[in-house]
Each structure stands twice: as C-alpha cells, then as structure tokens.
C-alpha cells in the first residue's frame, strides 16, 4: 500500500484538516464555483486582482482531502503572483498531474523546487479516478481568472 502513503502524504492531510485562506473576501473581487458532479465535491474561491497581481484570495468548499488540500495549497501558491505567473503555475500543475499531455515539469532531484507544497499531489497520478478531485480547484480558478479578465 505504498501508493496510498504516496497519495495521503502528511502535508496533504495537514492542508485538508487546516485549510489555508478559508473564508470570503470583502471589497472588489471575482467569485467562481466548481462542482464535481460525479462525487459531489464543491470548491469556490474569491479572487482579488489588482494591477495584474493576485492581491487576495479566499476559498470555500467541501469534499475529499485531495480536492480540499489541492485548493488550500493553490490559494497559498497564487497569492501575490502576477496573472501570467498564475497561469504558468496552472499549466505546470496540469502537466504534473498528467491532465495535459507533456513532460512533467517537476525536478526529481529538487523536490518542491518547482511547485512547492503542490508537488505533494504527484501521488494522485497513480489514482486516475482521483485526478479530477485534485483538478477541481484549478478549473474553478481558471473560471475566476476568465471572469476577472472579462471584468476589465
């Protein structure tokens, strides 16, 4: 059951049990919601972008450890980043998870160097039914970015 230990790494359970940036934003922001119809997982986020920079983010939702940890890590990772950097992160994440085709960007010799904590989600790749759990916050983020762009 080594695969299971890879899947449920300490850090994932930590983000699941103590999600970062949980809450809602006040003031100007965009809001996007995602749901995984096959399992019922829900994720939502409030995103504030100012001068092309993510200046605040808050997440809501409920679901499995993978979707909620993925969302929590994502929120931390995007805060303070410029939109193109967020998009780059998103692309790298999708490559790492095997959602988009292409080589994984992760450097096996320097764990954490490319995607930080998010690299802990690599174990999900061995569980194809769970990949969409990990991806849910990211499709919701893409939605939020599209809204933000449409709003400007």
């Amino acid at each position: 059951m080594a695969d299971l230990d890879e899947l449920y790494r300490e850090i994932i359970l930590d983000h699941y049990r103590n999600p970062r940036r949980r809450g809602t934003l006040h003031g100007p922001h965009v809001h996007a919601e995602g749901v995984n119809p096959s399992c019922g997982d829900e994720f939502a986020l409030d995103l504030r972008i100012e001068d092309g920079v993510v200046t605040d983010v808050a997440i809501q939702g409920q679901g499995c450890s993978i979707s909620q940890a993925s969302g929590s890590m994502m929120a931390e990772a995007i805060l303070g980043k410029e939109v193109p950097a967020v998009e780059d992160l998103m692309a790298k994440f999708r490559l790492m998870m095997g959602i988009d085709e292409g080589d994984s960007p992760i450097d096996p010799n320097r764990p954490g160097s490319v995607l930080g904590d998010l690299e802990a989600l690599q174990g999900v790749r061995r569980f194809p039914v769970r990949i969409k759990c990990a991806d849910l916050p990211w499709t919701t983020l893409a939605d939020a970015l599209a809204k933000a762009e449409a709003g400007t």
Partner: protein
Amino acid sequence: MTDLGDVRGDFPLLGRTFEGRPLVYLDSAATTQKPHRVIETIDRYYRELNANVHRGAYRLSAAATDAYEEARAKVARFIGAGSPEEVVFTRGATTALNHVAYGWGLHRLGSGDRILLTVMEHHSNIVPWQMVARLTGAELVYLDVDDEYRVDLSNLDELLDERVKIVSVSGMSNVTGALGPVAELAEAVADTEAVLVVDGAQLVPHAPVDVAALGADFLAFSGHKMLGPTGIGVLWGRPERLADLEPTEGGGEMIVDVTLTDAKWAPVPHRFEAGTPPIAQAIGLGAAVDYLEDLGMDAVRAHEEAITAYALDRLSEIPDLTVYGPRDVATRGGAVSFELGDIHAHDLATILDEHGVAVRAGHHCAKPLMRRLGAVATTRASFYVYNVAEDVDRLVEALWKAREVFGLD
C-alpha cells in the same frame, strides 16, 4: 451465516482478483453482479433466437416473442401479479417511475393538487415528480424521517389530505437500508383518492414481494439490481390503474392503428412499450428471476438479515465510525452507510479499493436525505446473495488501515 449455500462460484466476476486479492464487491445496491445463468441466457439469445418480437411471421420471430413474453410471465409470478399483462418492461426503475409521473400525473394533476413523498427517496423518485409538478402546478410535500432513520408518520394524517393525489415511497432506502412504511401508507391511502406508488428498486431484489398483498397501485424496479442485465426494468400496475395510465412514449408496437391525425393504443401492457423493446434484457431478467426463485426469496432475505447483523456488529468495533441507518435488521436491508472520523467518503473508498474492497461513496442519488442526515457524503457497503462473512471481515480490516493512513488513533 447463510442458507444460500456457496453461490459465489456462480458469479464469474467475483473470481477476479485485484493485485492478487479476490474482489470484495460491496456495491450491490448500485448494481449487482450476474450469475452464469443470466450471462449465458443473453449469449444464447443472440446466438440462437435473435429476432424482433410481435412482428415476424416466421418461426424465429415467434420463438423470440415467446421467450420475451415468457420472461414477462416469470416476472409476474415472481412478484405475485395476477397476470403477465400487469407487467410492463421498461429501461429501468427510473423509467418506470417516470411512466407513472408523466402518464398518471401529467394528465390528472392540476394546481392545488399534491404529491406526497418522503425525504428518504432516491432522486429517481423525486425529480420526475418535480418535473410533473412544474408542468401541472401541483405541489410536493414530504414525510420526514425520524431519529431511527425510519419514515416519520406522526403527521401523516395532517399531510394526507384531499389535495394529495399521488403518494410515492421507497420500499427500502438505498442509503440507510430502512424499509419504507408501505403497509401503513397503503392503509392510509385506501381511504383516499390517491394512488400509491412504490419504488421497489431496492425492495424487490432483497425481500419477498407479493403485489397482491402490498397494497400499492404501482411498483417500479430494475433488473440490474437483482442479478439481471442493465437496460431493463419493470413497472407493475394494478390492472385498473394500468388501464387508466396514459402512455408517455409513442411509437411502433404500442398502437393498433395509426392514421395521419390519430392513433389507437394497443392493449396493456404493449401500450407502454413503444418501439422495439429490450428483448435480450427482458429474457435475461427472466433468467435472473429463475435464479432468485431457486435460491428462494425467503432465504435471500434471511441471508441478508444475517450478513447485515454481522456487519453492523463488526462495524461497531471501529472507533469514530457512525452508521446512518436502523440497528434492528428486521426493519432494514443490506445497504449500510457510514462515516469514519474526518475521513471523507471518497478518501475512504479509495483506501478500501486499494484493499480490494469495492464500496460506493457520495450522495447515493439521495441529496435531500443526505442534507437531512447532516452528511455530505457517506461511504456505503451493500450486500447481496454472494457476500459472505469474510467480505465483512475484509471491509473491517481495510477500515482499520484507513484509520492508520489518516492517522486516527
């Protein structure tokens, strides 16, 4: 534990192993595995008998028609129907319920009328009524469940007033396993104008059902949940109710005459079977019924009570595990939903799957009930004729492993 004998060998899929361990299949409430007899009946149908029914003037087609109608007679006998004409073949329980919702409700309900359901219903026994309510202006009202997960009848008298034209209830919950109050509702409805519809998707596979005694006007169930193929279900109706039910699908075979402007319906039950029916699937369901009758539905039920009692017992060993469902196995079936600590149902299912134990996780197509229970998602183990005590042991073992993975101590 069981009077059924060792039936596992009859189910080829249960011989599959996952990473060296035999599959423990605990998702029969979603769909059951199929015995050789059913698989081979379908196979033989396509190899030796395949032809369209009710149409041909040649022997092959007559033989296919006989086999199809014989399956109808088998199903009728299985549920104690007065005649095969009371049995309509549909695509599944969902379609059967929609037949009643549209065929009865759409033509009879109006603004001010009410449909009485319970909060423990499967989406298939809620959404069709919502759709028809929207089209007719009728309103839905619900019976609640009590702390024992049973349908709460304390305000039945109040709810069942003259506005209620349809009462529809599950015979057995696919989430909590609780038996529905069919007898009580039948008695209450008898004094009213309302018809009683029973969603038998979980009841018919798991307990002896005799429609002559059930007190229902309509009964819906699915073949795939009772060892039969996918793509087939049944709507049983009292003859006088079927006679008054409007067909909801038009097409070939359900008419005696069609002109450019009008059509005359065929007799019941063909009236409700527009187009080419699921022929091989009906015949396959007939074989499943034969198999269940050989086991004996009393024995099936006894086995289910025994294995459910054993499972509830063993699950109670596990700390932080909450079962959503009645404790008394006499009042319930073999679908056992639970939560384990803060482990989300999906994570739990993944961990169990890694241990070769197949369970379902989620809302089980019963979101209103889940909300009522205060659960977002549960893990469900459900049992059927081929499950044995060892399956429960494997489940329990894997649940302990899940505690480890999630660091529950």
